[in-house]
């Protein structure tokens, strides 16, 4: 498949935004449960606002993928059958709920609605935040299933795709949360950075497992089954179009093996290995190191998503063996 830049931006930006919210919302619960100490100044509203901004940027990027962005609202219609339609519903739902959380946190409207047990006060923002978490989980599944549900794109058609999207989104979100916590001199820094290391490591393991899985994949289709001629030697002499067609432009990339190899090694090092090392050496005062870790990880995840497209082999390419 040819990488679609807008889709690469969409999936990485919303992944980070979702992970960022999960980081701060989970930290809030650990504070409520008394496991983590509360920060001196609660900036989780601002962090959640950044999360909404990332989701919004992803949404804007996705519009560049459409031929008719003005009709995008129609895309919510087929949620019974289409994962893309479900994503179109889950993304604004998550944005609205996070925005509600932000407004409650930043305004004076937030108040305690119930007390769990004896000493755990639950405010409206916590309830709305829980709704946001559900929407975020749904969004992770919908986004990944758009790719994983296409059964003849064998490199994508795997539960690993869903797991990878979830882990990589959360990893980048927690890395960004570490940078924010370090900047704000937040006592919860150790939680964020610990989780960021754990998630980045887990993401690396499963992404590497996916690379190994995909290396051994063999398509059940061949040129023989594509045209139904059962002879071992078939050579295409004409594609039916001299100047290329949508089929050659949208599905066949022209990157050489060395570029693809560089991207693969690049995303493994930039997206996972270097951030792991940087997060490992960082402490509460090393805002720069954490920011660098996030910036490199995001670049690495852009490369990862690019490679994700390159990796997928579309069976329609069998009909386009050579340009003629």
């Amino acid at each position, binding site marked *: 498949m040819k990488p679609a830049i807008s889709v690469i931006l969409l999936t990485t930006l919303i992944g980070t935004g979702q992970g960022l919210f999960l980081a701060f919302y989970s930290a809030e619960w650990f504070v409520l449960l008394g496991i983590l100490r509360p920060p001196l100044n609660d900036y989780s509203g601002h962090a959640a606002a950044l999360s909404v901004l990332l989701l919004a940027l992803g949404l804007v990027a996705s519009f560049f993928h459409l031929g008719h962005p003005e009709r995008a609202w129609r895309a919510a219609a087929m949620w019974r059958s*289409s994962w893309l339609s479900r994503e179109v519903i889950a993304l604004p739902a998550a944005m609205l709920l996070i925005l509600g959380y932000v407004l409650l946190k930043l305004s004076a409207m937030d108040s305690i609605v119930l007390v769990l047990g004896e000493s755990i006060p639950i405010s409206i923002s916590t309830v709305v935040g829980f709704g946001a978490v559900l929407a975020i989980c749904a969004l992770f599944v919908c986004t990944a299933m758009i790719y994983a549900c296409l059964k003849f794109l064998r490199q994508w058609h795997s539960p690993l795709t869903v797991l990878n999207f979830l882990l990589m989104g959360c990893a980048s979100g927690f890395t960004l949360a570490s940078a924010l916590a370090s900047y704000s001199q937040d006592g919860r820094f150790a939680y964020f950075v610990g989780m960021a290391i754990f998630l980045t490591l887990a993401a690396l393991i499963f992404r590497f497992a996916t690379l190994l899985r995909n290396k051994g994949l063999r398509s059940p289709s061949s040129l023989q089954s594509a045209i139904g001629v059962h002879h071992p030697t078939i050579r295409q002499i004409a594609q039916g179009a001299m100047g290329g067609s*949508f089929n050659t432009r949208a599905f066949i990339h022209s990157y050489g093996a060395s570029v693809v190899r560089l991207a693969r090694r690049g995303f493994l090092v930039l997206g996972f290995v270097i951030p792991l090392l940087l997060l490992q050496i960082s402490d509460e005062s090393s805002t720069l190191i954490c920011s660098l870790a996030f910036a490199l990880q995001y670049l690495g995840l852009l490369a990862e998503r690019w490679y994700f497209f390159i990796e997928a082999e579309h069976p329609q390419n069998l009909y386009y063996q050579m340009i003629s």
Partner: protein
Amino acid sequence: MTQLALVIDLNTCVGCHACVTSCKEWNTSGQAGPMVDKNPYAAEPTGTFFNRVQSFEVGTFPNTQTVHFPKSCLHCEDPPCVPVCPTGASYKRPEDGIVLVDYDKCIGCEYCSWACPYGAREIDEQQKVMKKCTLCVDRLYDESLPEAERKPVCVLSCPTSARIYGDIHDPESEASKAISDAGGYQLMPEWGTAPANHYLPRRKVSIAIHEEDLQRVDNPLRKEDRGPRKPTTRTTLDDSTSW
């Protein structure tokens, strides 16, 4: 249930592209708007086509055969492009099984083209919507056309009658008979899409005929040499009579 489809005989297709040009001509002139051409007279001509003919060389020189392979939407019975469409612009008509795109609903997200293993869909660079073969649905039920012309235009234009149109769910249709009599097959059956369009395979077009196949060696007529009388050189009644 009706499932209209094409059956394409690879044995008779000569790769003349008449189906390609007639398809383009009919469908670019229709009410759905033109099918764009980009650089039609320049170095990299390209554009929207519902149907293309590809050519393949099978075998090793000098023992080769050229297979011309017309390729269009196969109107799958279980079309993978339809459920993925987020807007419902892609749909399969229950009444005749044709898979269509509603150009007014399509948002041009290209997701259906990812979901089609055959590469049968393409985006129109001008209208920015997904387009594909409609099986000339605007001809099939048009009562202003003579009944014989209520067929896809590619079928009518094929000079070798390599394209057969009909209901493949009706065992008495010409298309169904062609499939069952000539070993019609589907493309990439491994994906379970059940394409409605079928292809008829290449067949041997020559057979060895020996003398004894034509005339039995123990033919009693020949044995007793009582064959038909040889033509005579004398004038016969036919020659001399004026009719």
